[in-house]
């Protein structure tokens, strides 16, 4: 039974609660790094490493961190891991580092990571938090790669930098540019909704859900709190 629930923690991030396509978190890196499959994959893995590490550490420290200053604490922990990952990528994968640029540093403010820290790691034990991090990370990577595949193959007639000659005359250059990203993302969300026939909790109200502070405010609660003050 226990194993079963652990498994579901791991699996839910991949499809049922896919962070990108269902929870609509982390939109900025999703749009910015998906014009190339290699970049998208690198981004997904980098974010997953940060997510797993920070989830575990935050889960370990969840009884130590005072409630009132938890968000700054989480941010510092996440920023620390991002710096480590950044230095690692710069040292071993300089090409990827060039490709991702500032977005690698911006993993710090990726809503998925802060959101999972707040929603999951601060309430669960280390094992479950790590599994949640892995599941969410895989879900994030898959969604990113799917989007990058569509954009790169049809927009640039190549796959991970390798040209596909027979698609060359038909490529839609618009897809690899900024507007193409938003278009493909919109279509994918609609597709996921269609496949799950509306059973997935599609957020029609996302006034706060998508924002990086979503973790601290639980879907719109932050706006209400702001108005009360």
């Amino acid at each position, binding site marked *: 039974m226990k194993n079963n629930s652990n498994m579901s923690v791991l699996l839910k991030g991949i499809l049922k609660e896919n962070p990108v396509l269902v929870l609509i978190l982390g939109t900025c890196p999703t749009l910015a790094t998906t014009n190339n499959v290699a970049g998208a994959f690198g981004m997904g893995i980098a974010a997953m490493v940060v997510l797993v590490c920070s989830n575990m550490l935050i889960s370990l420290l969840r009884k130590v961190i005072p409630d009132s200053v938890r968000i700054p604490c989480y941010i510092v922990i996440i920023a620390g891991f991002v710096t480590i990952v950044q230095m690692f990528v710069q040292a071993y994968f300089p090409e990827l580092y060039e490709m991702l640029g500032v977005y690698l540093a911006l993993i*710090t*403010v990726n809503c998925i990571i802060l959101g999972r820290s707040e929603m999951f790691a601060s309430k669960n034990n280390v094992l479950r938090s790590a599994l949640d991090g892995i599941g969410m990370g895989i879900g994030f990577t898959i969604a990113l790669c799917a989007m990058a595949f569509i954009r790169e193959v049809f927009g640039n007639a190549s796959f991970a930098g390798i040209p596909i000659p027979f698609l060359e005359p038909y490529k839609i250059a618009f897809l690899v540019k900024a507007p193409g*990203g938003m278009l493909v993302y*919109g279509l994918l969300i609609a597709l996921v909704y269609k496949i799950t026939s509306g059973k997935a909790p599609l957020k029609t109200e*996302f006034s706060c859900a998508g*924002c990086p502070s979503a973790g601290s405010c639980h879907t719109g609660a932050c706006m209400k709190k*702001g108005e009360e003050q």
Partner: protein
Amino acid sequence: MEVFKTLIIILLSSVLVNNYVLSRFLGICPFLGVSKKLNQAVGMGISVTAVMLLATAVTWPIQYLLLDKLGLGYMQNIIFILVIASLVQILELILKRFSPALHKGLGVYLPLITTNCAVLGVAINNINDGYNFLESMVSSLGCGLGFLLAMVLFSGLRSRIDESRVPAPFRGLAVTLIAASFISLAFMGFAGVVDALFA
């Protein structure tokens, strides 16, 4: 004159050509989230501009006078995010104490900006692009105004979308993103405008 020209180019290119929301994908979340009503969009836009300017004014000296001098360049991420988070908190306290009216208008948006990727993005990009202090401030102003422009334009479009009948799978975020894609497509038309301005 030369300096003035550079500043104008930086300003216009960060408002129109390299618009943070529409071509660099920074700050997408508030762009999608808080653009439902015009007054909210304006409030958020102004708050983001103010925080961007303030953040740059503080992080630029920290980078060049503190981190670089001490060889702590790798601490950039941690220091910047902490500075921005505390800055927003202090700004909120100050506004609450000295200008309750302004706090009422903008205070709601401030907690949302703490971890807005556009603000951290501007601070880091200014350093990466090697701008001097004045150029950094102008670039932040441009990014903020570009954000405001995108928010205002989009809030107009949003109200039209809300009134129209959309197929079920596209309801909500999907149609919003596709609409944003069209605005972004329109902004691509500005590419090259700024370079040609002084040519």
